[in-house]
């Protein structure tokens, strides 16, 4: 049985201007120890998918329907109190911007220790302190004891992200959701942090959902890839298949956008146009206005096709 199985999940936002279907019927699954990459442009619903796993959807948003089966239980049906016990304990999250994800007026040590103390009532302050120091060492933060007393402004961006990762790993979670964990970091630090996350998720035997707009990152780390567009998954399958043999025109476009070292082009490839607003989606396939293959057939949203072990939504792939 898969560790996590998401079935037909809908997370909608009820705004004054209308209903924004940020996540509109997505399904995927993750085995134990597996790494799933969710790729897509800004506003495709990747982050909302991640927050849905923790039940952390702010007003006016809501999980409208669907299932999130985690370890055999449906998280959508859980109460806020039950979810609180799961958050940071069985499912943990790493945020995009380390500059803003640590509380500026609480010491690193206190922020780490509370993650233990609220989940393990039997743990003493000393246990929590020792565990926190150990985990800081594990993520490669120099002078861990000294750092426990530091405040976030005294740390660099890369160090802060290490703290955030340490915080997520404190309770040895079964699933880690990383929302663009390297976007706000220097390129040199990015590789370190990605390698660290891959290593730690293997060591801790945790599954990982890696949310990113950077398909290069996904291709390095993941076992499976889901490509999201305008709130839906358009292509989903094994990494090798999707990176080396993309079928959906959108996935092809994303990979085409990457700069290649041995290539002397003046300009990089761009997918023409922008993603449609979630408030005014076109009839039929959401990608049709930017797709070079689109024709009449695309005026109806494509059905799911299962081709060679991958799932794809496109009329033009047969």
């Amino acid at each position: 049985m898969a560790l996590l199985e998401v079935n037909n999940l809908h997370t909608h936002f009820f705004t004054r201007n209308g209903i924004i279907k940020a996540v509109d019927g997505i399904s995927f699954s993750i085995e134990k120890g597996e790494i799933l990459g969710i790729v897509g442009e800004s506003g495709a619903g990747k982050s909302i998918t991640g927050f849905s796993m923790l039940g952390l959807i702010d007003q006016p948003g809501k999980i409208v329907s669907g299932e999130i089966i985690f370890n055999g239980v449906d998280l959508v049906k859980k109460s806020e109190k039950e979810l609180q016990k799961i958050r940071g304990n069985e499912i943990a999250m790493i945020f995009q911007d380390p500059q803003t994800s640590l509380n500026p007026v609480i010491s690193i040590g206190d922020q780490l220790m509370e993650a233990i103390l609220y989940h393990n009532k039997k743990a003493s302050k000393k246990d929590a302190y020792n565990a926190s120091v150990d985990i800081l060492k594990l993520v490669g933060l120099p002078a861990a004891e000294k750092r426990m007393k530091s405040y976030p402004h005294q740390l660099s961006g890369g160090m802060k992200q290490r703290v955030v990762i340490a915080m997520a790993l404190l309770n040895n979670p079964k699933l880690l959701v990383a929302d663009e964990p390297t976007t706000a970091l220097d390129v040199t630090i990015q590789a370190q942090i990605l390698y660290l996350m891959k290593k730690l998720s293997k060591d801790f035997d945790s599954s990982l959902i890696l949310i990113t707009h950077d398909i290069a990152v996904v291709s390095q780390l993941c076992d499976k890839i889901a490509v999201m567009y305008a709130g839906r998954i358009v292509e989903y399958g094994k990494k090798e298949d999707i990176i080396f043999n993309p079928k959906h025109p959108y996935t092809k476009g994303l990979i085409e956008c990457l700069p290649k070292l041995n290539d002397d082009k003046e300009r990089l490839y761009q997918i023409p146009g922008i993603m449609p607003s979630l408030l005014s989606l076109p009839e039929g396939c959401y990608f049709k206005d930017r797709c070079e293959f689109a024709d009449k057939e695309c005026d109806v949203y494509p059905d799911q096709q299962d081709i060679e072990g991958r799932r794809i939504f496109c009329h033009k792939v047969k």
Partner: protein
Amino acid sequence: MTKYILNRLFHSALVMFTISFIVFFIMFKAGDPVELMLPPDATQQDVVDMRAALGLDKSFIVQYQKFLVNVSKGNLGNSFIYGQPALDIVFERMPATMELAVIAMFISVLVGIPLGIISSIKPNSILSRIIMFFSLAGISVPVFWTGMILVLIFSVILGVLPSSGRGEVYLFTSAFTWDGIKHLIMPVATLAVFQLALILRLTRTGMMEVLMQDYIKLAAAKGVPRKVIVYYHALKNTLIPLITIIGIQFGQLVAFTIVTETIFAWPGTGKLIIDSIQNLDRPIVVAYLLVISFIFVAINFVVDVLYTFVDPRVRV
């Protein structure tokens, strides 16, 4: 830390010096008190004599120099009208003003912050809307109106509260006697309405902004209970700007109780300064403004030091 405090103290001294110059200069230019002090049938010789006796015949520079020398000895001059040391007169009136300001501020903070938090957690609930309606009214209604309406209702119509004076005073304050408390209620309420509304609204805005931050969401993602997030993670961040505002507002309260004191005939410094300005009683005006400035400077100094405890980013 010591260097920081010394630095702040030096700044404070500089501010005080500048204020003394400005105030002295304005009062010098404001007019000649001698004409007001002498009876209408006084001779020209009387005027000249009186001017010489008060030292007002000298040039501005000489007068200011003499003033500075006296200040360094702790002497701010004698009142032209009362003949007593100006500082003593101001200090004699200060407890009455202070008790109004302190009690009003205490109530505003104690009520304003919790209500602000409540209305920030669920901004669209009915309770929040009621709180916001009254806070909007509180911040908009002028002080003199609040004061007079209170007098109309509680003194004139219901006849339960006295409309003027300070009542029985025990140990510098009327807060320890029942009669004193009855006299305090309306002036304090008048002063507190605006401050409470202001603190409430600032708390709410601050909390709403902080609650949207990533670190609040991360705390929730760690499984920290909502109550702890609101009252520890968020409130600690909101308090930082709030401390500054409370400090400034307290200074304002002490300095601008004038209207309230006039309505309730409260024998504080506000009433003293109005009378002294009308009489061109320069020593009292200067002494009063210096004392008020000193309170402002002292509060700012305390706020600066408090900051280093609340906000690790300014720790030195």
